């Protein structure tokens, strides 16, 4: 399936606009220039991803915050992983929580990477740049 290789959109579900901006900046600095679709809440994000007008190509990556105003990030993660078309899309959980149980639960639900947003900005920037490296790795078309 060739379409996967053409999927270039990054979907970011993040209720904090500041965080979103900082993530975008650091992604660009890391050399990731894909289009970033930013959603401030879970409902809008799910509408876009699994709604009626879902894009033809699945996104390259979903960046997911667990702390959303309208629903828990766990629910979005579970829905994405339950969707046969979206299941292969890597989901990176990027959130303030570093609670072990939450991390474990995310991995159990099928997230690819769990990144804690550190308050220390240098560490934060480092984490997002490593995400760029991760993206470079997963650019390889997945096996159908």
């Amino acid at each position: 399936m060739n379409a996967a290789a053409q999927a270039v959109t990054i979907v970011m579900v993040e209720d904090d606009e500041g965080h979103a901006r900082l993530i975008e900046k650091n992604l660009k600095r890391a050399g990731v220039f894909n289009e970033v679709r930013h959603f401030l809440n879970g409902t809008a994000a799910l509408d876009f991803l699994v709604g009626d007008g879902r894009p033809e190509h699945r996104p390259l990556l979903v960046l997911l915050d667990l702390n959303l105003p309208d629903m828990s990030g766990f629910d979005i993660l579970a829905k994405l992983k339950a969707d046969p078309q979206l299941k292969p899309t890597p989901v990176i959980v990027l959130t303030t929580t570093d609670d072990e149980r939450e991390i474990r639960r995310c991995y159990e639900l099928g997230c690819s990477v769990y990144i804690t947003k550190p308050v220390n900005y240098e560490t934060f920037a480092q984490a997002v740049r490593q995400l760029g490296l991760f993206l470079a790795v997963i650019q390889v078309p997945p096996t159908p």
Partner: protein
Amino acid sequence: MRITQSLFGRSSLLLMALGFTALLATGAGMVWLVEATRSFAAGVIATQDVRVTASQVFSLIQDAETGQRGYLLTGEDRYLEPYRRAMEALPHELPALAARIAADGGNVDAVRQLQATLAMKLDELDRTISLAAAGDQAGALALMRTDRGVAEMDTIRSIVNGIETRSIARGEKRSKGLVRTGRLLLAGAGAAFLLILGVTIGAVLHARRYARALEAAQAEVTAANASLEARVAERTAALAAANDEVQRFAYIVSHDLRAPLVNVMGFTTELEAAVAPIGALLAAAEREAPGIVTSDARAAVLEDIPEAVGFIRSSTQRMDRLINAILRLSREGRRLLHPERVDLQALIAGLVATQQHQLDEAGVSLTLAPGLPSITSDRLAVEQIFGNLIDNAVKYLDPARPGRIVIRGRTSRTHVVVEVEDNGRGIDPRDHDRIFELFRRSGRQDKPGEGIGLAHVRALARRLGGDVECRSAPGLGSTFRVTLALTAPANTQPPSSAEDSPA
């Protein structure tokens, strides 16, 4: 009705005393009855003696008269034999009769009367016999025909009869007295028996009532205990719920506080980065057109902005540390305890060993007294408690004197008390409670720290069924006393669900 133990004891004693007195009285009555019977028997014998002696006396007198008559009729001397025997015996028999009447309790006047009459009779006999012996047969008969002797004999008979009758009457009186005494005693014994029976029944009823009262009291105590246990369980559950609530609150707050901080730090750094090209621009402007660079602009770029960024950065870092501390405490509170056998002596010795290098460098002598017990508790929590206290003791030593730290303990039935004593700089008494509060510190703030350690120690000690308290004199040293349950309480809450709370 309530019967106290002492009241029951006293009333039982009273009943017993009453019964015993009744028994004693019955016994005394019996002794008296036996004595009365014995004296009655003696009386019967005395009466008998009086009657026998009286008839002997009378029979002797008759013998004497018979002898006189025989002699007067026949004139033969041998007929005087009974008379002579009677004359010999009578002087002995009369006092004997008097003595027996006296022994019988009778009047001896009758004997005196008898003696007087007898003397007259014997005189008459003697005179007739003397006349007959002198040959004056007619004179003797004439004397007899005066009927004086017959009258005297009648008097004697009636006196003797009187003695006998009175003696019999006395015996009957005694007999009646005995019967009365017997009846009286029987009635007394009956009454005593009834009394003892009553006392026994009373005592039994009393004991049964006491036993019932005891049972009722026991039931009350059991019920009170049960309701107390229920109340304690209720309160414990409520406390656990409240505690859980606080933990969740702390957890959520610290996460939600972190998110804005990410922005503050992030954009501060972005701002700092943005200042760099402006600084370069300023330098270029100063080089090429010094006229357009105002001192305000230079101050803003070179001093004000870096200063502001510096303060924002240090404050944010501090805030981050505080939030992390709350988060850590909250996690610690939510952590499930794993009680296991912990050898306190070995555990503290281990903690001391890891610090030994720093202790040696600082010239601190640390003594761990032997004799700490093994307890059932959460190893990690116990380690954190004593690790924090030893850290503090070392951290706040007084540089003016060589440090000395002593750790010792004692064990009670349910708890172990461990004291960590130092000769450090001490803590102001006003701060003895405050230091256990989160973010609160005491004294000169010349050591790094957020004011978390002791709050953590107290939270842990309380979770392990104990507490920690401080005694200290500023300038002399401090003693922290940790109390821990020998067996830590079971977890009061499930490792509740961070997942349920919005992350």
